């Protein structure tokens, strides 16, 4: 009973934070456009008044890469480097917003306008950033340990002959089972920092682990649900975006709107996770 009630309360809390989610979306969109629009201009410059763009209408004709010559390399380089910068900047931006969201779900339930949200985000930013870096590092190490090392060893020993077999699924399953634990620790730690106003990250992590132990099954099953929903949504959204090939201007604009709606939903799912963990903490208290 608690399980559904917690998920529901988390969803309601996330949904009622729509203004904050829209702020996050808009900020992220503007940031990405800073890189994407110049790229589009480069692409236009390459093709100028050529009809060669018709070769891209029903999917990118990779043969064009040769015709584009060095421009193709520059474009890919700019898109990759720009993408890397965006991921780094986005990491900072979303860590910043996480501070505001946890404040919203912890101590200012129903009472956090955009200005206060920004203030709370700014107040929590540094400790949240340190915590996010630390936990990201732990998750990378976890991934390397559980997936990278065994797969590497098996591939070396068998000279790749069992790569792709079902046996290789085992490390991935173990990794997926462990991920909700790390997410719970991270979110509990952040909730603790938001609730106490403390910036001590190791104490926060201690509190996170302690909260994890209390009512572990309930917390874990809730987080597993959220993790699966997030993963499925992420995969489905990317699949839709990848395989959609709108060919005309109006359809492309609709496609743009659809992808942005998907991204807003993605932000909602993330906020739902934060809110649900905050709810879990309230119940445990």
């Amino acid at each position, binding site marked *: 009973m608690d399980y559904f009630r917690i998920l529901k309360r988390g969803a309601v809390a996330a949904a009622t934070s729509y203004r904050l989610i829209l702020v996050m979306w808009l900020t*992220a*969109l503007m940031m*990405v*456009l800073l890189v*994407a*629009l110049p*790229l*589009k201009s480069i*692409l*236009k410059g390459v*093709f100028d*008044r*050529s*009809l*060669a*763009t018709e070769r*891209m*209408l*029903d*999917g*990118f*004709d*990779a*043969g*064009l*890469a*040769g*015709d584009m*010559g060095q421009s193709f390399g520059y474009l890919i380089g700019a*898109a990759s480097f720009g*993408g890397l910068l*965006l*991921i780094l900047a*986005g*990491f900072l931006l*979303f860590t910043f917003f*996480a501070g505001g969201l946890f404040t919203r779900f912890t101590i200012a339930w129903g009472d956090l306008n955009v200005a206060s949200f920004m203030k709370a985000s700014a107040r929590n930013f540094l400790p949240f950033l340190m915590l*996010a870096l630390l936990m*990201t590092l732990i*998750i990378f190490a976890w991934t390397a340990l559980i997936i990278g090392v065994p797969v590497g060893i098996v591939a070396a020993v068998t*000279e790749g*002959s069992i*790569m*792709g077999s079902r046996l290789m699924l085992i490390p991935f399953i173990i990794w997926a089972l462990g991920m909700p634990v790390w*997410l719970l620790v991270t979110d509990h730690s952040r909730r603790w920092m938001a609730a106490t106003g403390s910036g001590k990250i190791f104490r926060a992590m201690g509190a996170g682990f302690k909260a994890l132990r209390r009512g572990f099954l309930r917390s874990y099953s809730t987080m597993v649900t959220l993790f699966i929903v997030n993963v499925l949504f*992420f995969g489905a959204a990317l699949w839709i*975006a*990848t*395989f959609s*090939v*709108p060919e*005309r*201007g109006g359809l*492309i604009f609709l*496609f*743009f709107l659809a*992808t942005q709606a*998907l*991204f807003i939903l*993605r932000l909602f799912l993330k906020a739902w996770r934060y809110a649900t963990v905050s709810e879990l903490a309230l119940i445990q208290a």
Partner: protein
Amino acid sequence: MRRLLFIFMFSMPLLLQGQAIFDIPLSERTTGYDIAAVLDPDSKTVTGEMTAWWVNRSAMPVDHAMLHLYLNAFSSNKSSFAASGRWSPAGDEGYGYVRISRLMDASGNDLTRSMHFVAPDDGNINDRTVLQIDLTAPINPGDTLKLNMLFESKLPSPIVRTGYNKDYFWVAQWFPKFGVYEPAGMRQRESDGWNCHQFHPNSEFYANHSVYNVSVTIPSDYIAGSGGLLLEEMDNGDGTKKIKWRAEDIVDFAWTAWPGYKVVTDKWRGVDITFLTSERGLKIADNQVNAVKYGLEYLDARVGPYPWPHLTFVDPPVEGSGAGGMEYTTIFTSAGSGLVPSFLRMAEMVTIHEFGHAYFMGILASNEFEEPWLDEGVNSYWEERIVDHYYGDGYGLIRLPFIKFSDADMARTSYIGSPSRQAATNNLPSWLYPHGTYGMMSYQKAATWLHTLEGLITTETMDNVFREFYRKWAFRHPSGKDFIETVNDVVRREHGEKFGKDMNWFFDQVLYGTEVCDYRVSGVSNRKITGYSGIVDGDSVTFTRSDRKSDTLYLAKVGIERMGGMKLPIEVLVSFDNGDEILEEWDGTARFTDFEYPGTRKVTRVTIDPDSKIDLDVNRINNSWTDDPEFPASGRMMTKYVFLMQMLISLFTI
């Protein structure tokens, strides 16, 4: 007694002729080999006794023989092959070699001491891949040289074309093999002589069509396949088995043995297809077998019949992947080991390519060492046609909703994208291509200009060129000049003098030249003619059009430029705002040309080479112009980029 023994030994081939595959030989059968070999999986050696014969078909006596000892390329790091950096041994166990411990002629003369190594290509004294045998007496025209020898072949590791890995054996280029003796006139040669090149990193084949009677003894639990027709397999009762094969009119004999092979059999018309693969490769066995059938069907219809009743191909397992992508006419290897994602038709592409060598090198046995384009380039051209015909609606390699890639475009992209595309002509021996351009030039550039030739003379004529080439040269040794002569004959027959008295102007540029092809739309203008005034014949004249739009006159002008040094005839499609279209033809020889269209219509679109016939054009983006550029595709790509970035940011932020 000794002489009797030799008479018996040398009569063995005649006895085995009773089991002939073809009633009438397909080739002259200048050479033949009878080999009895034993594979020792522990020492990684194949030891054997071989009787080899060669017929002097020249008009002059020949006093020496030359043989390839390919495996010696792996005997040290100083061979021309190893020194190129292409291969290094997996420890001391990895070296390979072939040693002849006894060599005798039919008269019982011991020739062992008259053997010595030569390096005709690069003079490398450490290269022991070409053996010269000075004969005790010259072989007169029409006579046969018969050699009997004991040899030991140590297989190399890792596998590059040939070798072993653990219990996987790909036994190729493994026995002493005659070079080709070319009489004067053959392949435009001025005087008689042996054509026997060293083992180079970039090419493998030039050999006579031969008859092979091969028996191998291998452990009983091994599964084997070869380019021969299986005659017999018998258990020796000692943990080994003996397999006998016979092959006729092929240029090389390779075989493989591995306990893990899974065997798939199928049939296409009269051809028995055997597919050896791994457990994982079974998943794509249907795709692989279909790929071979497509190749058979396509080339049979457009070039000539596949003559052999058997064909074996292999998808080596991961441990044997070094053997992937090789061709020995009636046995060849694919690649991928079942690990390539199915949307990428790479495995099928390799299968079709290597199968195609049965025609281009196998039947039409050109000299790959000296004219690699005639082997790899021609074969790549046909591979691309087959792959793009049967898969992906013209985009044979990848056809997904968001990306597409044709096999022909992959070759073209490799050529036009190479910074060294003008470093050399397309007519060099394989070992002389500079700056790593061998692959790009002999495979991709050659295939690209063959597609261009097809575009110019039409697909139907191109098919007829190859039908004629096959008819004239099957089971012989054509040269590049012989191919050009065939093109000239067929084009003249079908198109008269439309392309000039011959097509040499084309080959002079694409094969013997280094220039690139690039035409562009340099400018389009639709100048409004609002009035006309001036002095005509001493009288002042003024003429003014009305301002009504329907009466507006334009001087529409289209400028075309030749940017590259290559001159090819091109078509230019000009479209007007009233829906009219005009297809202009230009011989493409001048540096520029202008087309002018006075009248009431405006030019809205210009496209050079609208049917994409000229694959050699290194930049097709500048081939067209529109007055109304739209960028829906770039808008879509940017939308996807934005969304991907947003999702990645949300993924990496916990």
